[in-house]
């Protein structure tokens, strides 16, 4: 049982121009083993929401509950993957992956077993002893995901993990991630601005509005799994995409208008 719940979270920043409402009363629950995606226009606060879920940012109001317990600090129970990979450049791929287990003081043979398995699963064979600087963007992100998984977190939080990758690599990574998810059945909260990515990966999609960020619509993705490359060309996929595109477009327009009003 690994369920993460965001309860009435609101976030306000104080700036010189006054108070900015970044997030307003957001509540959502990701039940055990669900892959939930948050999409929204840029600047809607979706990354902030994820940082709050990780415990890295304290919300102005509301709280984050993990299996019903309030969380106040970041911890190994909520693993995070950032867009910028943020691997530790001075550690080899293997040592990066073993970082979490090492902190937990897991016995070295266990660590090695975990990292070897993830290196194979993430198709990083032959790069175990390489430093991150020798890896391509896609490989770096695979290593970062492996590092998060090595800790066996209750929830995996992913902040636009494929945002910096080219379209081809991104597609491959999405397929790999669905495979991995099918295998581990982690509870995942995945933030992206890429609508197709959200539909391809998610069980459920939360569409956020622009500032102040709110959840405007919740969509169930009823496309059966396992999803493959062919899913992208199916009629249901297109239907869902058009629906989300419409909502996001409306929201983006609103955001631009409100910026014009302010200016």
């Amino acid at each position, binding site marked *: 049982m690994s369920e993460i719940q965001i309860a009435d979270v609101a976030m306000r920043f104080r700036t010189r121009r006054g108070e900015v409402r970044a997030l307003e009363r957001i509540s959502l629950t990701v039940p055990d083993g669900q892959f939930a995606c948050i999409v929204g226009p840029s600047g809607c606060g979706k990354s902030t929401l994820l940082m709050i879920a990780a*415990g890295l940012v304290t919300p102005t109001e509301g709280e984050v509950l993990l299996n019903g317990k309030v969380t106040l600090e*970041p911890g190994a129970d909520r693993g995070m993957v950032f867009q910028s990979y*943020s691997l530790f450049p001075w550690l080899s791929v293997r040592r990066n992956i073993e970082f979490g287990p090492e902190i937990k003081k897991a016995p070295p043979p266990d660590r090695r077993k975990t990292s070897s398995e993830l290196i194979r699963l993430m198709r990083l064979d032959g790069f175990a002893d390489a430093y991150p600087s020798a890896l391509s963007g896609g490989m770096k992100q695979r290593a970062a995901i492996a590092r998060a998984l090595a800790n066996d977190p209750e929830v995996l939080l992913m902040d636009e993990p494929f945002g910096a990758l080219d379209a081809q690599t991104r597609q491959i990574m999405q397929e790999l991630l669905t495979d991995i998810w099918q295998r581990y059945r982690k509870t995942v909260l995945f933030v992206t601005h890429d609508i197709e990515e959200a539909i391809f990966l998610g069980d459920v999609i939360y569409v956020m509005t622009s500032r102040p960020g709110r959840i405007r619509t919740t969509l169930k993705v009823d496309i059966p799994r396992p999803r493959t490359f062919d899913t992208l060309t199916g009629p249901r996929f297109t239907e869902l995409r058009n629906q989300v595109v419409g909502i996001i477009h409306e929201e983006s327009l609103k955001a631009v208008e409100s910026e014009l009003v302010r200016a």
Partner: protein
Amino acid sequence: MSRVPAARVAPVPSAARPRRRRGFTRTYLTPKQAIPRRARVILAVGSFVFVVGVWTLLAALVQNPLSALFVPSPYQVVLTWWDMMVNLAFYNDVGWSTFRILAGFLLAAVVAVPLGLLMGSFEAVRSFFNPPINAIRYMPASAFIPLLILLQGLGEDEKITIIWIGVFFQLVLMVMDIAHRVPDEMLNVAYTLGASRWTVFYKVFLPATFPEVVDALRITMGWAWTYLIVAELVAAEHGIGSFILIAERYLRADRIIAAIITIGILGLITDTLFAVIHRLAFPYVQKVRA
């Protein structure tokens, strides 16, 4: 899944294929373009030959015997340098200067690096130390010499203090900047991997700063030489600076030049040492070939 067959590329008849141009312009005048290894070596050696050549030419052109005294040829300087070593125990002065440099530099680094790291990571520490350090940084170390002579006299501690002042205030701010630039995400990811604040500090934050800290040490080491020589020129019994001053009294331009070149070589040696340390300690840093 539909696969589009890859379009076959018809081979271009060799006669019609445009020849790849390897002209001078393309190789040497394209910005940021790598040049052949051989050309690099020739240019590096060539620059040295050029400098020595111009110098020799200048020395030969000066006919006036009085001026000739002040413009010795490279060959003469080499002879003088040998003479200095054998007959004037110049190595003693080199030893004194090196000792002062090492003492002043190490004492500065031992305080500046930890303080800089703390200033870069804790805003409270930064807010407290930054204003005075920033102000003192703009006060030239050499201006402190008369004051330090009054306070400390003409001994070793005065020289070492000058170097300390010259290095410390620059180094501490450089290290602070380095620490400040460690990406937040790198620390955040460590927290979500279960690391405590202390673990994040010594397992992520510190190693993330090390390569650049060594670079900063290398740069400030170069400055330390400048401050030392100034301190020795003002007042010292031995050391390269005082040697230069005495040479001036005897109108020995050749000795001055030989001493200056010695400093250059010593600087080159320390710089190479730092580069080697950097390469051995941080093999993961990909550096542009110097």
